[in-house]
């Protein structure tokens, strides 16, 4: 049975020291012409700052192509960042040599979006969970197996399923197995990249509850990436809203939902269809599509779609301003 959650606000004060500090993270994907000339960059992530606090969850939210997944992958060094630093235990993990990073690699784990391709179809699920322990040479074979079975139980999969293949499980179960695999090496930070997006709603709530329960039991810190604001709201203590490679607003969850500041955040919030036919929310409809990250708009990246655009927005890049304690937004309307 699950324990009731401790008060979120109290928890923050107890552990108010950052575990990982990400500063000015940039990731540009070069575009080459057919003749191999460098003709530009896809500015997938363009100067992102945030902190992960111990045993808390930071939510990264934004629409497709905003760079939220790239941010998550960069922290695990699945993609080499173009610029920026990530301080963990006093060291910049982007600057570590591959060998040195390998030693702390197990502190960083990831849960992926697609339950169908995130498990090797030719490996039994037990072996899939043992694999990370083998890679990091943790324990004897016997220990590894014991731990794998224990983890399966923890995520709600029966022990006798140990020798079954992934295709014998449903999407939600596979997501549980993926979580067990991430837990195998006792990580500190888990990057959850849209872990429930591919699941049906009734399964989604099961996995969300499991993620919270596991966070409690294993004292994990989450970076929770999702396009779904209501899911992020449920998971995160603090939320960063991303648009075109930049964080446009950052605030504690309740603050963000209570007093959204940036026009994009407000539009995003109002666009969510509510499962209640009696409330027709006042919609801020933003027109058009997200501009190409190859040639992001000058000034504020949102100015092409912003309903409150001013002349100034087209030229000047707005800076992050603290509005209330912990609530930051980058918008000229705040000046």
């Amino acid at each position, binding site marked *: 049975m699950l324990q009731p959650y401790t008060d979120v606000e109290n928890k923050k004060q107890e552990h108010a020291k950052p575990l990982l500090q990400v500063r000015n993270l940039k990731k540009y994907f070069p575009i080459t012409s057919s003749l191999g000339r460098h003709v530009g960059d896809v500015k997938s992530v363009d100067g992102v700052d945030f902190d992960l606090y111990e045993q808390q969850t930071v939510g990264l939210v934004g629409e497709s192509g905003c760079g939220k997944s790239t941010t998550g992958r960069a922290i*695990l060094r*699945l993609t080499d960042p173009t610029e920026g630093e990530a301080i963990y235990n006093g060291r910049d993990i982007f600057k570590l040599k591959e060998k040195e*990073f*390998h030693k702390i*690699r*197990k502190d*960083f*784990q*990831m849960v*992926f*979006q*697609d339950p169908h*391709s*995130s*498990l*090797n*179809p*030719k*490996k039994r699920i037990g072996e*899939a969970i043992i*694999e*990370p322990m083998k*890679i*990091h040479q943790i324990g*004897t*074979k*016997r220990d590894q*197996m*014991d731990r794998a*079975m224990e983890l399966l139980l923890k995520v709600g999969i029966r*022990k*006798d399923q*140990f*020798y*079954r293949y992934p*295709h*014998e499980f449903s999407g939600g179960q596979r997501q549980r197995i*993926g979580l067990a*695999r991430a837990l195998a*090496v006792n990580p500190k930070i888990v990057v959850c990249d849209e872990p429930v997006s591919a699941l049906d709603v009734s399964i989604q709530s099961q996995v969300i509850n499991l993620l919270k329960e596991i966070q409690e039991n294993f004292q994990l810190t989450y970076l929770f990436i999702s396009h779904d604001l209501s899911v992020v709201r449920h998971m995160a203590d603090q939320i960063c809203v991303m648009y075109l490679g930049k964080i446009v607003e950052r605030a504690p969850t309740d603050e963000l939902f209570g007093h959204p500041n940036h026009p994009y955040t407000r539009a995003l919030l109002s666009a969510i269809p509510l499962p209640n036919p009696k409330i027709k929310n006042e919609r801020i409809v933003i027109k058009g599509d997200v501009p190409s990250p190859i040639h992001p708009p000058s000034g504020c990246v949102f100015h092409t779609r912003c309903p409150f655009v001013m002349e100034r927005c087209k030229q000047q890049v707005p800076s992050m301003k603290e509005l209330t304690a912990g609530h930051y937004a980058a918008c000229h309307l705040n000046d």
Partner: protein
Amino acid sequence: MGVNVPIENRDILQTKTQLKKERFRLFVRRFLNNRLALIGSSIMIFLLLFVSFSLLFMNSSPLEIDPANRLHAPSSEHWFGTDTFGRDLFSRVVHGGFVSLAVGFSATIITAIIGMIIGLYASYYKFLDHILMRICDGLLAFPDVLLAIAITAVLGPRPINVVIAITVVKIPTMARIVRSSALVIKEQTYIEALKAQGASSWRTLWMHIAPNTLSPYIVQITNVFASAIILEAGLSFLGAGVPAPEPSWGNILYDGKVVIFNAWWMTFFPGVFIVLSVLGLNLFGDGLRDLLDPHTNKANK
């Protein structure tokens, strides 16, 4: 792993063996339901049994010349008739079958091994990929028989050189098949998950990518085997393969072409065997494709 299983998990080990049995039974059932694979493998088994039993129990030699009995039509004494030198054609076809299948088989195995290595590493290392694939492109641009002829012409017409020639000709196709399916696997999330764990490239390639390329790989092996048989026959037919007097299906056909006006059996019998073996392998390959295809797997579940 068995010894290391803690006592309390012994019953789980039993589930494992039980699951294995179940899966095996399911596979057998699906195999028996797959007409193509069944017919193909039956043809291959028939050919193998035929050749090996005949080799074991036959008393006439494929090289024994009997000038008195030249070009006899099939009879109870010479089932397939005799050739220009009065040699027993049945014995030559069976021996030739052994040679042709052995050459084809060895070429296929070597091709499969080297093709897997090249394909896997090319898919993983971009730099290697550029070099290896340009070489493969180059080799693929040669018309296969021409290249094989050139190789055997240079190295001399010997069975081992025929194997080498076929191998060189077929490796690029094999490597490409492995590479292209490995490239797809490489993009799968579970490979990214491995990278996130810090797995070595060896582990990623051989323990995770390679097993997932197996189904197209196995199908391709049957294709290579079939075309190796055709290629060997073609080379020997042109006089650039297995040299006389040693028989092979190809060079019996070569002898047959000379006497095509008066000895139909000289082309007919080796021809039937070539067609049967290629047909058997192709059917088997097509059947395997259906059998190993993950889509049909799902439908069957």
